[in-house]
C-alpha cells in the first residue's frame, strides 16, 4: 500500500514541479489574497477601527488551509481526467482508498507550504504573528485540513459522476461555504436564520475559535470539540457518498468514458 500511495504522491509532486500554473496556485492567489486583506486591515487601522481587525489576516491564512487541501484533491483527479490518464490509474492495482490517501497527503503538503509562506509574509508585511499565542491554533488548522479533505472527496465524487458539468465546483464549492463559515466576521453578524446552518459547518467553529484564541490566548475546548466532531461526521459522510457515487459510476459506465471513447 505504501509504495502505491508514494507513487501517486510522486506523480502529483512531479506535476507541481513542472507546471507553473499549479505552483502559482500555491503561491500567487493566496499571496494576492493576503495583500488585499492586509491593505484593507492597514486602512481600517488608520481610520481608528479597533485592533481586532488584525484577525482578518488570520482569516485569510486559515481559510487557505481549507481551500488548499480541498482543491489539491479535486484538481489532482480532474487533472487525470483532462490528461486522459484517469483510466491508467483505475486499471492499475490501486485501491480507491490509496488514491484518496495520496491526494489528501498532497492537500496537507500544499496547505503546509502555503500557510508557512503566508504566515511569514503576514509577519514581515503587517507584523501579524499567527504564532503569537503559541501553537494553540494548530488544532484548528488540523480541523480545517480535515474539513478540506471531506469537501475535496465530496466534490471529487460529483466530478466522477457528472464530469465536466461539475468541474466548476472545484473553485466554487469553497466559496459557497466561506460566507457561512464566519471567516472574516463573528457568527453573530449572520442573520439569525442562517446561524443554525453555519453551526453545522466545522469551519465556523474554527474561525470563532481562532478569534477567541487570538483575543484571549487560550483555546475554547467546546469550539475545538465541535469542529472535530463535525469534521469526522463530514469525512465519514463524504467517504460514504464517494463509495455510493463510484458504484453508480461503474453501473452506468461513466468511468470508462473518462477517456476511453
Amino acid at each position, binding site marked *: 500500500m505504501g509504495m502505491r500511495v508514494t507513487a501517486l504522491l510522486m506523480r502529483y509532486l512531479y506535476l507541481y514541479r513542472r507546471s507553473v500554473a499549479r505552483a502559482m496556485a500555491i503561491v500567487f492567489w493566496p499571496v494576492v489574497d493576503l495583500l488585499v486583506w492586509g491593505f484593507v486591515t492597514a486602512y481600517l487601522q488608520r481610520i481608528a477601527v479597533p485592533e481586532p481587525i488584525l484577525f482578518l489576516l488570520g482569516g485569510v491564512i486559515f481559510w487557505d488551509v481549507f481551500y488548499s487541501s480541498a482543491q489539491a484533491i479535486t484538481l489532482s483527479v480532474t487533472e487525470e481526467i483532462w490528461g486522459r490518464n484517469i*483510466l491508467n490509474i483505475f*486499471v492499475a492495482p490501486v485501491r480507491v482508498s490509496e488514491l484518496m490517501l495520496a491526494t489528501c497527503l498532497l492537500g496537507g503538503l500544499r496547505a503546509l507550504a502555503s500557510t508557512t509562506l503566508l504566515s511569514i509574509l503576514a509577519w514581515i508585511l503587517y507584523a501579524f504573528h499567527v504564532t503569537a499565542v503559541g501553537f494553540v491554533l494548530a488544532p484548528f488548522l488540523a480541523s480545517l485540513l480535515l474539513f478540506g479533505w471531506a469537501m475535496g472527496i465530496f466534490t471529487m465524487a460529483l466530478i466522477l459522476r457528472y464530469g465536466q458539468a461539475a468541474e466548476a465546483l472545484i473553485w466554487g464549492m469553497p466559496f459557497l461555504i466561506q460566507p457561512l463559515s464566519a471567516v472574516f466576521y463573528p457568527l453573530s453578524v449572520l442573520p439569525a436564520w442562517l446561524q443554525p446552518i453555519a453551526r453545522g459547518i466545522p469551519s465556523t467553529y474554527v474561525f470563532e475559535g481562532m478569534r477567541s484564541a487570538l483575543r484571549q490566548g487560550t483555546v475554547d475546548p467546546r469550539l475545538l470539540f465541535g469542529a472535530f466532531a463535525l469534521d469526522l461526521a463530514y469525512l465519514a459522510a463524504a467517504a460514504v457518498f464517494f463509495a455510493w457515487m463510484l*458504484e453508480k459510476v461503474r453501473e452506468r459506465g461513466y468511468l*470508462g468514458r473518462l477517456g476511453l471513447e
Partner: protein
Amino acid sequence: MTAEPVIEVRDLTKRFGRVTAVDGLSFGVERGQIFGLLGPNGAGKTTTIQLLLGLTTPTSGRIRVLGLDVARHRRAILQRSNFSSAYVSLPSNLTVAENLTVFARLYGMRRPRHRIGELLGLFEIPGVERSLTGALSSGQMTRLNLCKAFLNDPEVLFLDEPTASLDPDIADKVRTVLRRIQRERGVTILYTSHNMREVEILCDRVLFLSKGRAVREGTPGDVVAQSQAGSLEELFIAIARDGDLRSVEESS
C-alpha cells in the same frame, strides 16, 4: 483435458437504461492467444473491455480472468494484467522516466530503471527518458503507452486500438514487437482494431460483435470462409451495414 481459458465470459449482459450494449455474450480466450474483439462503432467492444477491466459492472453474467472472478478479485487480476488504448495518455507534463517510474511503482516494482530502459529499447524509443511526454510524437507516445502496458510483465494484456495513430511503418514495428513478446512470454492479448489487415496478421482468433451480440467467432481465415466474404474487411463491412449474422449471410 482442456486448460481453463485465461479470459472466460459467460452470458454477459450490460444494459444502460433501455439500451443493451452487451447482450448475452460468451467467449473464452486461451493462454498465449491474441484474440481480436471486432465490430463496428457501437457494437459493444469498448463496453466489453470496460466490463473485463472491472470499470463497469455487468447487469448479469460472469467474467473470469486468470481463473479469478473480476467482481471479487479485481485488484489481484489488475496486478497481473495491463491495458493500453489509443484514447488514453500518460501525463504530458511529466518526463517519460517519471511516468514509467510512477506506474512501475503502482505495479509494485521497487527499482524499475533497468526494466524501463529495456522496454524503451524494445519499442525502439531509446534515449527519451528525460524528454517530456508531451513533446513526443504520436508514434513515440503510442509506443510509450505500450511500454507502460508491459512494465509489470503482464499475463493478460488489453489493447484497445493500440496502432490507431501510427503510420504503417511504426504500426508494423509495433505488431512485430507484440508478436515477439506474445511468443516469448506467452502473454494473452485481447485486441481491438478497425484495421482488418492488421487483425489478419496478428490475431489467432477473432470475435465479431454486432449490437452487443457475438455474430462470428473463429480464426480470421475460418470466419471469412464461413461467411463466404472475400476478406475480413468485407465481412466487417457487411456486419457494419447489415447488423446481424443472418443478414450478413444473406448478403453474402
